[in-house]
């Protein structure tokens, strides 16, 4: 059976290319106008968008570096400059491409005029953006969201909210613009609409066969990360949702012969995104859910938009304790009727990978389904050992015989 046959391509992929291209063009134009920010994946993007400021995501750029299989080269540029190979490969890739854009995919990212970092995903982002600031001269704004263990404490809520107001002041001054309430409302509406459609597409994967596989979700999540708050983002998710719901209606799965349903935990190995998941598709393995693409599910809504943003962006998956992670996995396994799980221990991302051994035990204890941990990296393929990973994954699959 050829790779094409085991796996069904989404029609919406074409639209995805167009929208990604548009996003890049807008970023270049914004940079030329002195109006571009680089922004972390968990940052409240609704704010700069509502203020008419351009955004682009170094994490997404690093994923492109990974997918183009030049991770070791571009990360190597940062290492030659003095950065440790222990540093997150997203950070290394973006620093490497900033140092030598001419040697990097797409000629690097367009130059930023400000850098917006939110530490709800990790603490690395702050030092990483500091490093980019040194290289580009763009100032950093840190939107600080203290981690949540159990419940968010009232003084934390007040503190994060205060940070939002300061962010607006920072952007207004830096880009000589203002925040119009009405704009924020409109942008939040687009953002919520896109997220609603996205969640509905994710939830459609509860069906058997699952209409989407892991690689589908990892690729189609790009706009909900980078362009939520834009009208064309809503259009894209409407098209995706139509296709996904159509597949469900017709009983069409993402893979042709679905036999085993697994949960994926963590960022994917971008340099192997098709090879890895399509290879498993040939063995009848589909991934109807993962912890990563489910992370973009918070809707900004209601009358108190600042309050809603404070809540949504403080409560992201990575900003919570181990218990919450295990809960999420258990819930996904139950809701999506999954047979087991694979946890990718990503060398770069300590925040995501820390505690996976314990989480694995907890999840198996609570669900009764087996899981395995494979080790590697999302961009730096030097840290990925195919044979070792294959043995672990195949041994897991052999448990379902």
């Amino acid at each position, binding site marked *: 059976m050829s790779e094409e046959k085991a796996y069904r391509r989404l029609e919406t992929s074409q639209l995805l290319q167009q929208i990604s291209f548009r996003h890049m063009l807008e970023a270049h134009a914004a940079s030329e106008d002195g109006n571009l920010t680089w922004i972390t994946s968990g940052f409240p993007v609704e704010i700069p968008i509502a203020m008419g400021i351009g955004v682009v995501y170094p994490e997404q750029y690093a994923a492109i570096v990974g997918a183009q299989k030049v991770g070791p080269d571009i990360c190597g540029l940062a290492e030659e400059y003095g950065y440790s190979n222990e540093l997150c490969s997203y950070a290394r890739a973006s620093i490497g491409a900033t140092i030598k854009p001419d040697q990097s995919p797409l000629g690097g990212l367009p130059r930023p005029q400000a850098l917006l970092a939110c530490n709800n995903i990790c603490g690395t982002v702050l030092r990483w953006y500091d490093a980019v600031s040194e290289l580009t001269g763009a100032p950093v704004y840190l939107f600080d969201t203290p981690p949540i263990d159990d419940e968010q404490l009232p003084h934390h809520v007040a503190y994060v909210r205060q940070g939002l107001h300061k962010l607006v002041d920072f952007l207004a001054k830096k880009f000589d613009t203002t925040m119009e309430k009405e704009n924020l409302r409109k942008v939040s509406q687009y953002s919520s609409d896109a997220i609603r459609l996205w969640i509905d597409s994710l939830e459609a994967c509860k069906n058997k066969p699952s209409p989407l596989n892991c690689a589908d979700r990892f690729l189609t999540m790009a706009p909900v990360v980078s362009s939520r708050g834009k009208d064309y983002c809503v259009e894209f998710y409407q098209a995706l949702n139509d296709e996904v719901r159509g597949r469900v209606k017709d009983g069409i799965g993402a893979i042709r012969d679905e036999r085993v349903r697994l949960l994926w935990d963590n960022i994917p190995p971008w340099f192997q995104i098709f090879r890895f998941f399509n290879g498993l598709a040939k063995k009848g393995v589909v991934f109807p859910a993962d912890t990563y693409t489910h992370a973009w599910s918070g809707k900004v809504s209601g009358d108190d938009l600042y309050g809603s943003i404070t809540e949504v962006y403080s409560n992201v998956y990575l900003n919570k304790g181990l218990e919450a992670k295990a809960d999420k996995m258990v819930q996904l396994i139950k809701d999506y009727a999954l047979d087991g799980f694979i946890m990718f221990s990503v060398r770069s991302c300590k925040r995501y990978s820390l505690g996976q051994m314990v989480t694995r035990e907890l999840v198996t204890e609570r669900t009764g389904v087996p899981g395995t941990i494979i080790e590697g990296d999302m961009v730096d393929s030097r840290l990925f050992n195919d*044979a070792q990973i294959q*043995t672990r994954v195949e041994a897991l699959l052999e448990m379902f015989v």
Partner: protein
Amino acid sequence: MRCSCEGNFFMSVQYGIGVDVGSTSTKAVIVDAVGRMVASHLIPTGGSAALSAAKCVERIVADVGIRQDDTPIVSTGYGRAQVNGAGERITEITCHSIGVHHLNPEIALLIDVGGQDSKVIRIGKNGRPADFEINDKCSAGTGRFLEVMSRVLEIPLPELGALALESTAPSAISSTCTVFAESEVIGRIGAGDSVKDIAAGIHLSMASKIGTLSRRVGVVEPVCVTGGVALNPAFRFYLSKQIGVELWVPEEPQLTGALGAAILSLKNND
């Protein structure tokens, strides 16, 4: 060797072949239709997995006097994809588990210490693995660790275990990294520790690393140890102390993976 499922197999094939291509050695086994091992062979893997597998199979097929083409083959181990003629390739996790269960159906936990990795497998229903952990990132806690240390101490590997058992005060050797431990051993030599104490420290360090891996899966008795390192008496002694249980070792602990593969070749053809 005793066979747990004697007479259980449907007799459509006369024999089955299992080939286990590990990073250090290649093992091949032939079992008859009721799962009795009738031939086995072990050679160093060397530079070519395909070649060492072919050599091994050629030898055992000749020993038994059967035709290779008529006999199903299952391959396992890191070189499993390279074995020509294999009808199926199954991981060493499943094959070791099946092989040990075949020899002793009571076994609940299997610790396999190979040349370049070590694994702990909880054996579940029908001898299939129910849970497993592998250490394959670091050579500490594998046969390779002992090889390096025997070279540093200039004691042949087969003698290292017996020498270690003479010690009553093992030297303190870290268990985190082979390279790190190597310089520690040189340090202990410089500090005047006796060779037997250092040898004991080396085994203790290795046993403690594998003890940790075992506790992660959960130590459930009875426990079996396989792999070439299972033949080393000092390793067995310290591992047994580390995890606090008696260990059962099959007669030929290096062959259980190939045996499991051979058993599976019969099952897949019945």
